[in-house]
């Protein structure tokens, strides 16, 4: 019997404590969702009748179309481009290999308003075309579902691209060569072998992209294509009907959970392991094919087109607008003060959320680490389900949770003679809470994957060399996982900075972040002014993307749903 198979927890109290702590963390995440679902049991009939008779059918249809469309586009672009850069060699291949991930740094709503501003009736493209061809030129309506789907597909394809690229690289050349030897062409091999083998990664990537599309409310609002996310924000803020918004969120939560289950079903239990590419014993990576003739330029062209449309042009556009905005000296000083305020608020919030999320993730991962801790892994899975839940839904759940806590506090306070009504609900506690619920999976996966390197045997070795459990944590675990912790914190930080729906719904007065600022300005078509905060978000967002590319893996996307 190997030590690995028989490894069991130490006979100490710390595993019990660990279980309790993880349950507590999982509870923090589950309670908001649970309370939402409870709401479904006694719906407000009048609200529902009204919603059904007015906007709800359209919103459901749009949400469905959006997710399908984004799924198809991200799948095609993501897997196709990944195939190109992995298997073929053409001019620029090495650059595009990593550059095609960069759109990950651009939030959908930023991409949305840049495209809106560029292609809408008053934008430069249509203006120019009218100048050339006359005023009665027919141009497809940009503010449409098609526009929204295209823009989001273009922004979200890197989720699939990155995972597909990693999956293709892991595939052994042996399988590939075997298929080629049996007379398959490159394309046939790709369609019949490589794609099916990468199915778990592809399904995970498409699901992540669809979930991102589902959580978005700003882009679809720009494009006049109301989805359920948009509906929740609209009912909550526009109609000031929080109860209706909460009920809508509860239904949406069911949809999201259904999607996650669908993903698990589609992905199957299969993980198609392949020996070879990793350990170098049986065959290496697929041998790249050097393209010749028109094909090489077609490949370069395809990559360039996507890169330009999804990243280079929008980034350039933002940069130009920003320069234009800043060059108006009259506003420069005032703007600097305002800008600094937004940056500090945003970074402060993001930093707090990142530290809290990573701290809690550490508790979860410590407890889920040892192979026999089934309970620990179940709690960890529950605690990380927030990644699948749209921001607006989490905001609704957090709101009713904290409102309940506030009521209890108020009752207690009245009893001792104080008056407190909205202690938590109206503070940044709610916002931080929502961020932690939403991005726990991001933090957890970073922490967990770095903790994988700490084997149970290292614990035992350290213990028998005189280290107490606490010293093992300080001398072995923390030093070994600190890079994972930092990476997790950086990812959460950036995700918080980009987050919009929960922020819009829960931010206390005067706590607007860069993302909210961008959204507000863009919603009023103040493109130039919106460019500065948007560019800030993109630039900061690039850092972890580049970092992850350097490390060679994108833990967020790769393992969020693993």
């Amino acid at each position, binding site marked *: 019997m*190997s030590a690995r*198979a*028989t490894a069991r927890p130490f006979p100490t109290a710390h595993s019990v404590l660990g279980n309790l702590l993880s349950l507590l963390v999982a509870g923090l995440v589950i309670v908001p969702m649970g309370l939402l679902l409870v709401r479904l049991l006694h719906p407000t009939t009048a609200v529902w009748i009204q919603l059904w008779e007015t906007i709800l059918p359209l919103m459901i249809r749009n949400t469905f179309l959006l997710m399908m469309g984004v799924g198809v586009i991200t799948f095609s672009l993501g897997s196709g481009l990944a195939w190109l850069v992995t298997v073929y060699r053409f001019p620029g291949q090495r650059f595009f290999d990593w550059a095609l991930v960069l759109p990950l740094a651009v939030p959908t709503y930023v991409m949305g308003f840049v495209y809106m501003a560029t292609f809408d009736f008053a934008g430069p493209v249509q203006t120019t075309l009218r100048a050339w061809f006359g005023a009665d030129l027919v141009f497809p309506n940009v503010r449409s579902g098609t526009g929204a789907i295209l823009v989001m597909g273009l922004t979200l394809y890197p989720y699939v691209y990155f995972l597909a690229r990693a999956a293709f690289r892991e595939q052994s050349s042996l399988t590939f060569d075997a298929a080629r030897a049996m007379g398959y062409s490159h394309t046939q091999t790709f369609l019949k072998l490589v794609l099916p083998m990468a199915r778990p990664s592809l399904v995970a990537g498409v699901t992540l992209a669809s979930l991102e599309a589902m959580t978005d409310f700003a882009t679809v609002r720009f494009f006049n294509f109301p989805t359920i996310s948009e509906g929740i924000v609209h009912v909550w803020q526009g109609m000031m009907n929080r109860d209706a918004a909460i009920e809508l969120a509860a239904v949406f939560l069911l949809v999201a959970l259904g999607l996650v289950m669908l993903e698990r079903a589609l992905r199957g239990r299969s993980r198609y392991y392949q020996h070879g590419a990793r350990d170098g014993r049986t065959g290496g990576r697929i041998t790249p094919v050097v393209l010749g003739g028109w094909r090489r330029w077609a490949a370069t062209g395809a990559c360039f087109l996507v890169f330009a449309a999804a990243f280079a042009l929008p980034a350039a556009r933002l940069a130009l607008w920003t320069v234009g905005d800043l060059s108006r000296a009259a506003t420069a000083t005032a703007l600097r003060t305002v800008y600094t305020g937004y940056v500090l608020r945003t970074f402060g919030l993001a930093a707090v959320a990142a530290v809290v999320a990573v701290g809690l993730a550490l508790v979860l991962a410590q407890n889920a680490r040892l192979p026999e801790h089934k309970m620990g892994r179940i709690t960890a899975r529950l605690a990380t389900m927030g990644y699948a839940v749209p921001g607006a839904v989490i905001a609704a759940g957090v709101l009713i949770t904290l409102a309940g806590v506030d009521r209890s506090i108020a009752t207690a306070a009245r009893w001792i003679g104080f008056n407190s009504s909205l202690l938590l609900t109206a503070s940044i506690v709610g916002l931080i809470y929502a961020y932690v619920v939403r991005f726990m999976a991001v933090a957890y996966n970073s922490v967990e994957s770095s903790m994988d390197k700490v084997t149970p045997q*290292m614990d*035992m070795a350290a213990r028998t060399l*005189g280290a107490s459990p606490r*010293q093992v944590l300080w001398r*072995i675990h923390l030093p070994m996982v600190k890079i994972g912790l930092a990476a997790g914190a950086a990812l959460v930080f950036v995700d918080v900075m980009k987050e919009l729906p929960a922020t819009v719904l829960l931010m206390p007065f005067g706590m607007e972040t860069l993302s909210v600022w961008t959204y507000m300005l863009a919603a009023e078509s103040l493109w130039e002014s919106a460019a500065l905060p948007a560019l800030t978000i993109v630039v900061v967002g690039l850092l972890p993307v580049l970092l992850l590319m350097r490390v060679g893996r994108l833990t967020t996307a790769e393992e969020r749903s693993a």
Partner: protein
Amino acid sequence: MTESVDRVAEKVISLVGVTKRYGDVTAAHDVTFDVYAGEFLVLLGPSGCGKSTLLRLLCGLDSVDAGRIERNGTVLSGESVCVPPEARGISLVFQDNALFPHMTVWNNVAFGLANQPKEAVAERVAEMLDLVRLRDVATRYPHELSGGQQQRVALARALAPKPSIVLLDEPFSDLDRSLRIGLREEVRAVLRSTGTAAILVTHDQEEALALGDRIAVQNDGRIEQVATPEALFGDPASRFVAEFIGATDFLAGEIASNGILTEIGALQQETDAPIGTAVEVAVRPDDVTLSPDPAAAATVVSRSFNGMSNIYRIRLPSGAFVHSLQPHTLSLADGTAVRVKVEPGHKLAYFPNHGGSP
């Protein structure tokens, strides 16, 4: 180590009636043995026999359900006692070496010397690294070393705090064969030079016979026999031990007045069972001689050539098989009829035959 020296020497570790259950599985069943000062004891058994459980119990990673573990007379594990691993003075070396990847070789070795003055630590680490001949790689990180070097660092790390005993959990099984043999000789020599007692856990009988001062054979949670390699080989206490050590065949036989009757003749040896008792005799390839004889009823089934010798697999008239070790010069084709004799020149072990076919 002879029996007399053995018994005089000081006991470092004693296990008395140690029992451990995991659910329905009894991983250690009434385990009793001692390890003496400076002794190299091998704990040998097939996968899943409970060897690793004993290691975990020894170093305090698990508590015992019954029995006790003592070190120099002090109870480490027992009823309501479980001294934590860090206070036991027992070190571990693992198969996967479990070196701390974020520390240099030097710091790995120094890990167990946390509470000592700096100069003492430096002196001890240097001494340990000299011992395993790795002084020149002290500033490297574990991943920059070869597998054999890593295992030597692990040994140095385990020895640095001067433990009463070192537990080696299959430390050589991840290594290439050529490296393995050299390394295990070296480990043995290092332990001998420091006079540290050790328990080596392995499933490799050849390794056990080559290294152990004594070998404890474990099967299904129980210790079947604790003895010197020679005693274990020559006088196995149970059928399991005989089967597990040295490719043994079993021949059905019956106790007679002057020995044991088998289908290939009578074995002249003293017995202490009643005449007529059905037994199984443990026969090893080196006990079996053969000569080609067209009239004989046994035939060669196959031959495995390993350089210095041939081992023949032979079918007896009853359908039973025995193996015979022959010089490489004797080459017989499959199907050759051979006359088989058992001429051990020593007593053969035999066990009651409980109605099983041979």
